[in-house]
């Protein structure tokens, strides 16, 4: 057993020792914070089921309170919905009247109805071996009716055009490829331009009217021309540098997944022949099939390919 004196000394020494330990813990926290946080996280992990049990009544009470508030607000909500319903019915009547009037006007103007585009949907597979740097293959399955020049769209906007058609897949040339040129219209400044891909994320605008420069942030839509229907959303104008307008595409060109290819049925929209127009004579399919010139010369083959010696 310790003497009374020793016990008194020990009792007086306890607090300084404990304070020293606490200072040690403070220093440990400054030097090795992750170690202390690791212990705390272990304790929290250990207590996680208890926390769940503690918080559970609070969550239940919240749910009950929400339900209770919903029940008390029911009458008010009902009145509001009835009012909204009345307003909606009014607008429904207005819409029906306007639709009827629109139909009547169209009929009296001999309006030609627009054709509803046919479309197929396919999953994108990357195109590694194609002729373009920015093109994708689209798996549309067998029995599709996709033609060259059809328009590919994702959920947000224009993606590109179909350049080659296979039995199961089609190749879509994307709008940011070097070879892509799309005629577009600028929604606010009403100018026409050509959107030219340059292998970057945002294609450039070229050939815009010099007295109507594109406005920063304005909408870019397709211009109705040959196979391309008008008014498809493309993106917005952005000046990446002075006098260098580019289009920030709406479509997510980097993360393509599901793509739709639309056929706008353009066969009948060929422009009529103009009087006095000189038709360009089509080149023969295989220009090297006829007899070669100078075939009468000796030692000269008279047919293309491997000549007879």
């Amino acid at each position, binding site marked *: 057993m310790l003497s009374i004196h020793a016990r008194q000394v020990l009792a007086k020494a306890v607090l300084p020792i404990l304070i020293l330990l606490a200072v040690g813990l403070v220093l*440990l926290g400054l030097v090795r914070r992750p170690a202390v946080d690791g212990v705390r996280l272990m304790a929290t992990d250990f207590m996680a089921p208890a926390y769940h049990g503690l918080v559970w009544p609070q969550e239940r009470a919240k749910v009950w309170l929400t339900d209770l508030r919903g029940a008390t607000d029911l009458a008010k909500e009902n009145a509001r919905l009835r009012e909204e319903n009345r307003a909606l019915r009014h607008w429904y009547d207005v819409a029906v009247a306007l639709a009827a009037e629109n139909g009547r006007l169209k009929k009296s103007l001999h309006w030609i109805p627009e054709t509803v585009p046919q479309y197929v949907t396919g999953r994108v597979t990357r195109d590694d071996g194609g002729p373009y740097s920015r093109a994708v293959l689209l798996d549309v399955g067998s029995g599709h009716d996709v033609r060259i020049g059809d328009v590919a769209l994702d959920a947000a906007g224009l993606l590109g055009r179909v350049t080659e058609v296979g039995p199961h897949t089609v190749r879509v040339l994307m709008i940011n490829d070097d070879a892509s040129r799309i005629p577009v219209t600028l929604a606010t400044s009403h100018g026409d331009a050509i959107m030219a891909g340059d292998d970057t994320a945002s294609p450039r605008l070229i050939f815009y009217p010099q007295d109507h420069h594109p406005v920063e942030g304005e909408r870019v839509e397709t211009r109705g021309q040959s196979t391309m229907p008008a008014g498809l959303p493309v993106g917005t104008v952005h000046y990446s540098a002075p006098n260098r307008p580019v289009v920030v595409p709406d479509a997510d060109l980097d993360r393509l997944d599901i793509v739709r290819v639309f056929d706008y049925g353009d066969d009948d929209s060929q422009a009529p022949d103009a009087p006095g127009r000189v038709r360009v004579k089509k080149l023969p399919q295989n220009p090297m099939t006829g007899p070669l010139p100078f075939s009468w010369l000796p030692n000269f083959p008279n047919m293309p390919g491997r000549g007879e010696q």
Partner: protein
Amino acid sequence: MVAENSTPHLHSAVEPKQTFRRALDMAARAAMPSLFIMFSAILLSAPFGIPGQAQLQFGIAMCTVWFWAYSRPRSMPALAVFLCGLVVEIFSFGPPGTVLLSLLVIYGVSHHWRYGLSRLGFIAGWLIFSILAVLASFFQWALVCLHAVALLSPVPGLFQAALTIGIYPSLTALFVWGRRTFANPDQA
């Protein structure tokens, strides 16, 4: 001893028989303040989403240690303060060691001046406690700034000090009642 023998009528010639059950009861009553600190620290570390939960952990621990260190030191020995501080440290996410050190310092002050504090009125005791609470919060804030190597806003520290000072009277009322009843080992 002024505060410890607060129930002189029980110190009669006839003492109750010391049984195991009575020893257990006495130990439980003596450990009540420490258990209160640990229980509230663990309870307040649960994700209730109540504003000021972490500050309340600190405040409850400070008030409890301060009160019991001068009013009944046998219920709050230094080792118990250390253990309580460790538990609060584990279940809080401030700079490590600051709560523990603050608790030990406030324990030292309270224990050293226990005779004087027992004679002082409530308001004077509260005032001294307030100064210590502000100093402890300032110490915590300084350590957080040192750890972040930036001058951070002292508002959370001031809020913690204000909360600690604010809950002191109600906690003291609870403890004064507890010292007479459920946390009184002499009544076991």
